[in-house]
């Protein structure tokens, strides 16, 4: 054995404290849903409190329920896949899980856009930013993104790109549940785009703050 490797093994084995094992992705996903979903819904309800009646109407509408189911399934499957990606040795093909529900969600959004296009015509159909939507996007998306960052950082990223992409999708989808319930305009491609953008911002900010705090405590 190489001498310095032998020394390293001796140093690593010295005074070995017990560690708390990382829970399975399923259990962490349940924790994420239990904390982030209620927070997202409460924040959405607070920001859009004038639309509470609309939320109840949507809960009794078959098409809205179908869309909510697709969004929630996207959040669950993408969240599970992201948490698998943060634990080495877990199934490598978990990233394929959200393909079907996300596809269904996009198809429903596409159909909504098409109906809207037929109603208002090309001259009134626009992809310009709706700044009034942004507070709702931030309110519903913050908790899912922040809790996901905490969960991901507790593991180890062996495929960072895929894991971060799946985290963004999961957090956006969970935030979109509240948005789809409380926000007055129908969830169109534009709203989804804003949701993804907001989640990327949250994840980037959380990672930067967390890295800064880690460095500070290391050099303290």
């Amino acid at each position, binding site marked *: 054995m*190489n001498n310095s490797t032998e020394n390293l093994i001796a*140093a*690593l084995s010295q005074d*070995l404290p017990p560690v708390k*094992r990382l829970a399975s992705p399923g259990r962490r996903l349940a924790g994420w849903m239990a904390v982030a979903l209620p927070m997202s819904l409460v924040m959405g309800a607070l920001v859009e409190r004038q639309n509470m009646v609309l939320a109840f109407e949507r809960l009794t509408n078959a098409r809205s329920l179908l869309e909510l189911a697709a969004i929630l399934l996207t959040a669950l499957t993408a969240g599970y896949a992201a948490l698998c990606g*943060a634990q080495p*040795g877990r199934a490598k093909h978990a990233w394929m899980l959200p393909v079907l529900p996300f596809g269904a969600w996009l198809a429903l959004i596409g159909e909504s856009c098409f109906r809207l296009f037929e109603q208002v015509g090309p001259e009134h159909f626009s992809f310009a930013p709706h700044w009034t939507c942004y507070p709702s996007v931030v309110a519903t998306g913050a908790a899912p993104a922040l809790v996901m960052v905490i969960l991901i950082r507790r593991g*180890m990223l062996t495929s960072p790109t895929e894991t971060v992409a799946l985290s963004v999708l999961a957090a956006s989808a969970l935030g979109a549940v509240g948005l789809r319930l409380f926000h007055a305009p129908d969830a169109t491609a534009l709203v989804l785009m804003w949701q993804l953008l907001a989640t990327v911002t949250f994840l980037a900010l959380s990672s930067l703050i967390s890295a800064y705090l880690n*460095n500070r405590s290391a050099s303290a």
Partner: protein
Amino acid sequence: MADETRDAQWSEWMALAQDGDVVAYQSLLAAVLPLLRAIVGKRINDPDKGEDVVQDILLSLHRNRHTYDPKLPFRPWISTIAERRTMDALRKMYRQGAHEVLVDEYPETFLSDETNTPLEDDLVFASGDALSRALKTLPAGQQTAVELLKLREMSLKQASEVSGMSVAALKVAMHRALKNLRVEMAPKVERPKGGAVGK
């Protein structure tokens, strides 16, 4: 069948190590070394660089030992970490290679001959022998601090986790080590009177 028995043994050792069993941990790290060297050796031919990567993998294994689930086989877990660290090392090598230029001779710095004639002491110093000798004269704690903080470029927090020394103790050891190294190596870099420094 032998592979299954070995994997089961590794998995058991890792579970014990997660609970703080030093003997099981040492046995595990020694046992996985051939596997790690094989994974690294597939992509990195230089044995010295390869051994550095193997040591990086051991550090990653140590830092992330909480992520292993004893209900799952051990080999996919350690292989994933090893492959990831190997790819990181390769990326780093390619990045460094793109910014380095190999030269046969150092360019002249001044016209005077003395400034471009390496002294014997400089050669010894440049070879790293003097530094290695000076490092060996340091007390064990200071050697650990230099190795982890300077040679392995760990953060204070990581070095503290690995060595078991507190951050404050590491800082003190590092400070004293540098002071001792300066004293130990001072005669090697002194120039004869009248000789200009050319580097």
